[in-house]
């Protein structure tokens, strides 16, 4: 039984086939404007590899940077209305108040503030104004806005008002795609609303992209179920990915970190992913990326939700040096490295050229950089070492020496030693770590529920059962499920000793019938 992992990046589409721990084949093809075509080409190239067979494929996992790129580049966004259930509080700061103007213009589908929401202890802040919500739904339909972000005060404590609002809105505007903030974010109304609005404004693109993934698979003759990879290193069934594209925002770096763990066999380590323009540094804990616990800006928008804790610095294989001052970056030749770098006959001095001159790698024509003086090479490589070391150290949380796993196309820039790092490992097959990370992604099940009148042990056991059932329904193998997160929060003032419990379990994808069932993984 094998699995295919595909990473659809801005420049390349990578595909790998894994069987257990063995990489049976790996290919790199250019990403195309028409996503379907690019994936088909990658699959065709993969299936042409000698050890790869089209039969016995258990699942296909796709990771994509499409959604986050759409936000960063302000393209392919649909208008989304904001319904905020907050009055009498929050009236002076309208939704999107702190968004960059150019992004707000693309996505703003009108703002509606209505009475309702809750207190921190679960009591109501105000009665829910159902009439105003109905009127807002009618107005959205009249305006031709068919996506909405619903955010209620303290909805991470109780989502009651958001859920009721969704019912009312759908009654007035049956085609409306509704995103509830309680599904996505944490406490911090503006940041949670921002995530919810970003999600709603990606509704069209998510539907289109996921459909083109499905088409690419069908046209390649692969009948295995399709999964989309998420920020946390797990996968979602396609219908969930369609609804919640923001959970795929960081799947690129997450997959590369997970892939690095898998390919090296090391589950606890720092990971350095050196690309063409930037380097990302993250931290693996038990094989999963450590989660960020503060505000993460996406395309200039402040957000607070499940995202890996990453530090990005402007340093990559394509980073440009000023030939006279030797100032480094932050500009990069990006994916034009093969045309523009000196070692490839181009005219731009890049960090790759200096690394070749330093003897770190044998790529391109070394003679084309022989006029760089030894002192220059030493100074620049010293600069690179200092910056990477500092960035790695910044992300470390203990003084204990930890291993550092290096992946990415710019890995030749890796210093030989870094303070506080026990060993530096260049991961085998590191160029396709992303796709490997996608292929090995697991299935999760999460429950976030308010329990009443139960002892703590019992309610946690009940919550775990529910989470396990959801994971199995989403395609997980029940035997492999592990609890990865437990949180319980007593809600004072609510009747009946209410406790909000959150449990998340993760497991491997269950083997489906021989030869690949054309299954919808969620019953």
């Amino acid at each position, binding site marked *: 039984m094998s699995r295919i992992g595909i990473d659809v990046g801005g420049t390349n589409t990578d595909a790998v086939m894994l069987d257990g721990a063995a990489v049976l084949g790996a290919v790199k093809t250019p990403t195309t404007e028409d996503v379907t075509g690019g994936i088909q080409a990658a699959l065709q190239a993969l299936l042409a590899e000698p050890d790869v067979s089209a039969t016995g494929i258990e699942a296909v996992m796709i990771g994509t940077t499409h959604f986050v790129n759409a936000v960063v580049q302000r393209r392919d966004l649909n208008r989304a209305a904001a319904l905020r259930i*907050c009055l009498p*509080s929050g009236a002076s*700061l309208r939704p999107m*108040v702190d968004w960059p103007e150019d992004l707000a213009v693309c996505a703003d589908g009108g703002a509606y503030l209505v009475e309702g929401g809750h207190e*921190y202890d679960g009591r109501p802040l105000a009665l829910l104004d159902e009439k105003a919500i109905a009127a807002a739904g009618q107005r959205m339909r009249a305006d031709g806005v068919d996506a909405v972000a619903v955010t209620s005060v303290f909805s991470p404590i109780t989502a009651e008002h958001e859920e009721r609002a969704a019912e009312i809105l759908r009654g007035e505007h049956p085609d409306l795609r509704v995103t509830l903030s309680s599904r996505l974010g944490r406490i*911090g109304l*503006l940041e949670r609303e921002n995530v919810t609005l970003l999600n709603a404004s990606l509704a069209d693109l998510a539907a289109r992209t996921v459909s083109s993934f499905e088409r690419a698979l069908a046209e390649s003759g692969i009948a295995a179920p399709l999964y989309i990879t998420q920020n946390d290193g797990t996968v979602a069934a396609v219908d969930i990915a369609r609804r919640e594209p923001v959970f795929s925002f960081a799947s690129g770096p997450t997959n590369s970190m997970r892939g690095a763990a898998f390919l090296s066999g090391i589950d606890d380590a720092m990971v350095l992913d050196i690309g063409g323009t930037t380097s990302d540094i993250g931290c693996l804990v038990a094989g999963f990326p450590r989660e960020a616990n503060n505000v993460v800006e996406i395309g200039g928008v402040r957000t607070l939700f499940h995202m890996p804790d990453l530090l990005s610095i402007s340093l990559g294989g394509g980073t440009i040096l000023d030939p006279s001052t030797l100032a480094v970056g932050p500009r990069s030749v990006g994916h034009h490295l093969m045309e523009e770098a000196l070692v490839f006959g181009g005219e731009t001095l890049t960090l790759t050229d200096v690394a070749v001159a330093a003897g770190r790698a044998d790529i391109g024509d070394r003679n084309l950089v022989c006029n760089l003086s030894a002192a220059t090479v030493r100074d620049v490589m010293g600069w690179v070492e200092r910056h990477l070391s500092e960035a790695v150290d910044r992300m470390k949380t203990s003084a204990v020496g930890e291993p550092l796993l290096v992946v990415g196309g710019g890995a030749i820039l890796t210093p030989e030693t870094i303070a506080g790092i026990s060993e530096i490992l260049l991961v085998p097959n590191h160029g396709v770590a992303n796709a490997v990370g996608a292929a090995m992604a697991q299935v999760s099940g999460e429950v976030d529920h308010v329990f009443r009148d139960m002892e703590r042990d019992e309610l946690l056991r009940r919550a775990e059962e529910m989470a396990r059932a959801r994971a199995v329904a989403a395609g997980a193998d029940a035997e492999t499920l592990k609890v990865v997160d437990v949180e319980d929060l007593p809600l004072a003032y609510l009747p009946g000793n209410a406790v909000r419990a959150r449990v998340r379990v993760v497991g491997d994808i269950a083997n489906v019938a021989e030869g690949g069932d054309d299954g919808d993984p969620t019953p």
Partner: protein
Amino acid sequence: VYPRKLTIDDIEALALGAWILGTGGGGAPYHRLLNMRELYRDGHEVTLIDPISLADDALVAVLSNMGAPLVGQERLADPAFATKPVRTMECYLGRTFDAVMSLEIGGGNGVHPLMVAAVTGYPVVDADTMGRAYPEAQMTSVAIAGLQCFPLTLADIRDNEVIITRAESWKWMERISRKACTEVGSIAATCKAPRTGREVKDHGILYTTTKAIDLGRAVMVARDRHDDPVDAIINSADGVRLFDGKVVDVARRATEGFLRGQAAIEGIGADAGSRFTVHFQNEFSVGYRGDAPVVMTPDLICVVDSASGDGIGTDVIRYGQRVSVLALPSPPVFLTPQGLENVGPRAFGFDLEFRSIFPAGPS
């Protein structure tokens, strides 16, 4: 030069400076800054006046937002809400105010009265009663001076208002107003006991709004020039740099309405090989180098991001952050015996004799 029309750039600098002077508490000023940007866009303006120019019988509103910063994260901030207790107080007293001022310059409350000023047109007095942030009513210059603690008005975001007409002491005022605040959702807008111009001149901590603006601006200029923003803070506020390092451990617990805990910082650069621990109770209260207490309240203990110079709150300080620990001099009023009784280390549960890190006393 007073009276001075504040620009929105002044207010951006004020928010930055106030967050540093918050010594980890007071809540981030971000929502209030967003409101000020909106108000300025709509043509509102705020005038800052010299406390010394106040007539002796002028009436000044002392304003703050009270409660849990976490609740503020969901309820946001609103100028109309901030103004409610001011109007209630005016009705109760039967006269209008001449100006408004901050209860505390540290954190979000450093910007709070500017929202009221923009809406009402009242000028803002360049002063506060803490010179920083502290959690309780008796921890102010006016409480230490023994001034009258009542009346106080408190407003909920709904149509609930409370007037506390009398309280026996500042501690009683703290207890009663805290109870009312908790009942309306652990957040309330308040107008503290009004002060006369004479009282502000004699017992306010003067020129702290300008101090916070200057501090914020120094950091902004340093960032633009790629200078060290931490040095800029030290130069602007006569502080000392105590430690540079990386946060390696944070322990927090919520007890009796306070956020208590400690953060351990491992040295880098000149401090490599040593460890610094800052203890907090809402604000940073005591700092230990190794096992020795080297800095304590009422000296201001500021923990800032080493790269940006931004203040770091006790609720958000976390593993891996590169931080610098600084001490800034305390306002003189807190160094008196009564001052130390109200805000010295023992007031925060540390059995330590106060010793200032500034040996010559306040500069």
